[in-house]
């Protein structure tokens, strides 16, 4: 066999690279994140949970286009068994953060897990940030 050490060495490097995911965490990984339920006790969202889980970014995108480009600012009404009738404007701060007020415990828990880095927060502020600004 020609250049045995070189070829077997190269093959070993390749196998190590391909199996990175297997030895990266040394076969240990924490459980997947569970986003915090709304602190205010709301149990009904603007859309079914399954839809929100997979497609919330699409909804936010549609809202953004409707509000900013088409000036369709009609509100969304949700009937919550505990909090009664809730009325939301379309938007991250107007709707989502009203119930899911804790960005770190809700948004970030999944986004960091799957390395999704939406640029919402370059413009929007979390309730905590707003409170700290108002305190100044």
């Amino acid at each position, binding site marked *: 066999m020609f250049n045995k050490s070189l070829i077997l060495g190269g093959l070993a490097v390749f196998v190590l690279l391909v199996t990175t995911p297997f030895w990266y965490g040394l076969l240990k990984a924490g459980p997947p994140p569970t986003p915090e339920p709304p602190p205010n006790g709301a149990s009904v969202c603007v859309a079914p949970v*399954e839809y929100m889980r997979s497609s919330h970014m*699409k909804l936010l995108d549609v809202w953004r286009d409707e509000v900013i480009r088409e000036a369709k600012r009609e509100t969304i009404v949700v009937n919550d068994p505990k909090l009664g009738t809730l009325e939301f404007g379309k938007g991250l701060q107007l709707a989502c953060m009203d119930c899911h007020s804790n960005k770190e415990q809700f948004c970030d828990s999944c986004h960091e897990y799957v*390395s999704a*880095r939406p640029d919402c927060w370059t413009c929007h502020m979390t309730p905590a940030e707003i409170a700290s600004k108002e305190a100044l």
Partner: protein
Amino acid sequence: MKYVYSLGAVIALMLIAWFGSLIPGMQYFFGVAVPYLAIVIFLGGFAWKIWDWAKSPVPFSIQTTCGQAKSLDFIPHNRLEAPNTNTEVIARMALEILTFRSLFRHTKADVYAGPKLTYESAKWLWLFALIFHYSFLVIVIRHLRLFLEPVPAPIVWLDWADSLFEMGLPTLYLTDAGLLIGLLFLFARRLFTRPVRYMSLFNDYFPLFLLLAIGITGVLMRMVFRGGIDIAAIKAMGVGLVTFSPVVSPDISAIFYVHLFLVCALLIYFPFSKLMHLGGVFLSPTRNMRNNTREVRHVNPWNPDIKPHSYAAYEDEFREYMVEAGIPVEKELEPQKEAAEPA
């Protein structure tokens, strides 16, 4: 017509995964069993193929030279095209592997009335091959975010750079577009360039369709059919696979299983197909040998150890028998017998 069979094979694979994953309980088969089988066959097949190539004899020094070999001092040596030292070979190999230098030489041949044959430079193949391969590499690395927990910073940076233009939500990855554009070109080349079409086979079209289907299902899953694509549940599956504690979420939609099954099919197909150029490019003797046949005699290491046997030595060995058989010899037998008799 050959591309129709390849397309049919890919569609069949997609249908298997589509309807198979809808059968209750089969998510475990498509989400756990097939991926494990695929990675084992991929790695085993890859190593076997490399081993098979590595032990094949290379009896001749067969580097392709595209320039002046090292010669007398006053003749300029083309160090990249006829590498003489290991360093020069590494430089040549690196340019070949990282920039596809031999594709850069691709020419297009045309026959005009006359008949007159012309060749002209055609860089399209090189350009789109480069776009496709680098896009594919980035996509593969990017997918590590679904297997590694926590996600390493370089993968986050790569993800950021790839979605730099922030088109759409979720953002469009540039490499997704690059992969599909590159593949479509490579397919169109096989379809519309007549000589290439003539020599294209089932196994030329099949990987193209397979990769196209993987790319298209991936983009659709991200950008269009979000329903049932709970990315956190998918990552939990990926992490479960690599930590040998597989979990399957029942809510993931069929398109994900189609995507995953096609990737598994690609992994299984890989070691036994032309796709092995991933490993083969490193082992191609026409590129990885030194062009030093003027300085060093190339001896096949598999040659049996045959000592030179001159005629004189041959006659020494068989002289008695030759004389006995009446074959003329250059040197007569020593007169030992005659000397012995009188005594």
